[in-house]
């Protein structure tokens, strides 16, 4: 029995590059924040002091470590921990709302950017928009677009993160759509389903697991972004960091950084395991999803 292999939509290859190490990413993010902070601290410095930087940095690290090692149940250290945690949760909220905005906006755009759904003209235009969004970092969005309209604060941060997420999420969604199995789509079409029904019955259920996994992945990235945006005044954990750098409260900075690292790693672990379950199915019932995809999306 021979089977027609329908021409597959040109899609991405199914072996995304290996997962970036989350720990490295987190440390990298903190390093950037630290450099930011040092830049603030050393802004009034003259050049010769730059030579002392390594020594000064070592001193800071020692101070920060002391902060972390102090008994967290005693005042004032317990205050540091709870306050940092509160602000970290605010950062999570900002990231969550931002991701939600990104997911909602990117979903229809993903379909409009998919060659097997939208007419070529629409695809070209939407892809250019997505490319343009991806080319601009959140920070620029936050400073240039959101701050003037909404003022400094969590809303501006969430919107900046949301709009920025649309770029990558839209692209990944369109690629997932282009690489779907055409069999069900064609059979629905041939059975008389309308274009809208074909999308609803044959396409959306097929791409949904992959797309939700991308949303979660993007949430993980957005947590880091919201922490950094906070330094600029968008609320959350970043805002206290910049305040602490100004008063050079190194022990408190140490506690704050520890909270960021711990919470980020915990969320990554949870989100990563959910993504794995979505893509590979829940192991106990032996249910296998559509295809065995490598759980990590391509780097964005």
């Amino acid at each position, binding site marked *: *029995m021979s089977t027609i292999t329908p021409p597959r939509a040109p899609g991405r290859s199914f072996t995304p590059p290996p997962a970036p190490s989350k720990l490295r990413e987190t440390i990298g993010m903190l390093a950037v924040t630290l450099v930011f902070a040092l830049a603030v601290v050393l802004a009034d410095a003259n050049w010769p002091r730059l030579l002392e930087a390594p020594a000064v940095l070592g001193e800071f690290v020692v101070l920060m470590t002391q902060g972390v090692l102090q008994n967290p149940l005693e005042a004032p250290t317990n205050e540091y921990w709870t306050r940092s945690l509160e602000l970290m949760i605010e950062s999570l909220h900002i990231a969550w709302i931002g991701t939600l905005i990104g997911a909602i906006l990117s979903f229809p755009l993903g379909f409009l950017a998919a060659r097997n759904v939208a007419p070529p003209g629409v695809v070209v235009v939407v892809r250019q928009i997505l490319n343009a969004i991806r080319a601009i970092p959140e920070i620029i969005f936050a400073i240039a677009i959101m701050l003037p309209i909404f003022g400094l604060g969590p809303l501006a941060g969430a919107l900046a993160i949301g709009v920025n997420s649309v770029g990558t999420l839209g692209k990944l969604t369109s690629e997932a759509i282009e690489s779907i199995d055409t*069999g069900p789509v064609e059979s629905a079409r*041939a*059975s*008389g389903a309308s274009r809208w029904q074909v999308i609803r*019955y*044959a396409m959306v259920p097929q791409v949904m697991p992959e797309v939700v996994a991308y949303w979660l992945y993007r949430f993980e990235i957005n947590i880091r972004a919201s922490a950094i945006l906070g330094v600029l005044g968008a609320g959350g954990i970043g805002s206290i960091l910049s305040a602490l750098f100004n008063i050079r409260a190194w022990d408190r900075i140490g506690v704050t950084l520890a909270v960021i690292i711990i919470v980020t790693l915990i969320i990554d672990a949870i989100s990563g395991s959910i993504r794995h379950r979505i893509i590979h199915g829940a192991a106990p019932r032996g249910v296998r999803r559509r295809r065995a995809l490598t759980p990590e999306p391509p780097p964005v």
Partner: protein
Amino acid sequence: MSFSAPSTLATSPALPVRLAGVGRTFAGADGAPDRTVLRDVDLDIAAGEIVALIGASGCGKSTLLRQISGLDVPTEGDVTIDGRHVVPADQRCAVAFQEPRLLPWRTLTRNVEVGIPRTLGREDGRQRVAELLELVQLSDSANLRPRQISGGMAQRVSLARAFARGPGVLLLDEPFGALDALTRLTMQDLLVDIHAVEPATIVLVTHDVDEALTLADRVVLLGRDPDGAPGASIRRIVEVPGQRPRDRADAELAELRAELLDALGVDSHHHAH
């Protein structure tokens, strides 16, 4: 077999199909040479006729059905249904694919529902789905999902989905291929019964010569000319005598069977007396 027509039929009348000089050449990917699969296919199919399409595996039978359904476009020639050109995914046709191609995330009921014309009301549509599942003997499995059923059951769901619209032209690509022998005979009878009550023009691909002779008015043999140009064309058309339902043991049919098997290059072990 007793059979009563579904009460909610929304059947469109059977429509004539005409293939004129149809050819299909696939462009070679990445510098590979072009591949001519079909050439010069001329065939007139009367409204309500059943045509069986037989031929070696890979000779282009499924490809020919795709030209009629408008899921593919011929590179040569024209296909018309009822005098009008076929349009992409032509709604006058219904297709049962060689693979069942069900939607894995929908129950059998909801899969058949995809084929129900939207002009039919909600209640009527629901009733028709139930009747169709009853016809293909799957009422008990109506709420299962495709991964919970066997290949033969899936093929019957696909058949019910194709019947759902009461199409003018019904294109069936090896619809009984995955069925066990007994179910296959039952389904063949069912097709004859449905066709008697609800006549559609049917083009049926099969590799079973007996099935072709039992069901069809004409059997069309598709194949390549060994010395000719590349691409399969119609090698032979056989009129099947008698009325349906036909006696599977008929002697005249046995002659035709031997002839067709011979043309397919299969030794039939049949010796004419």
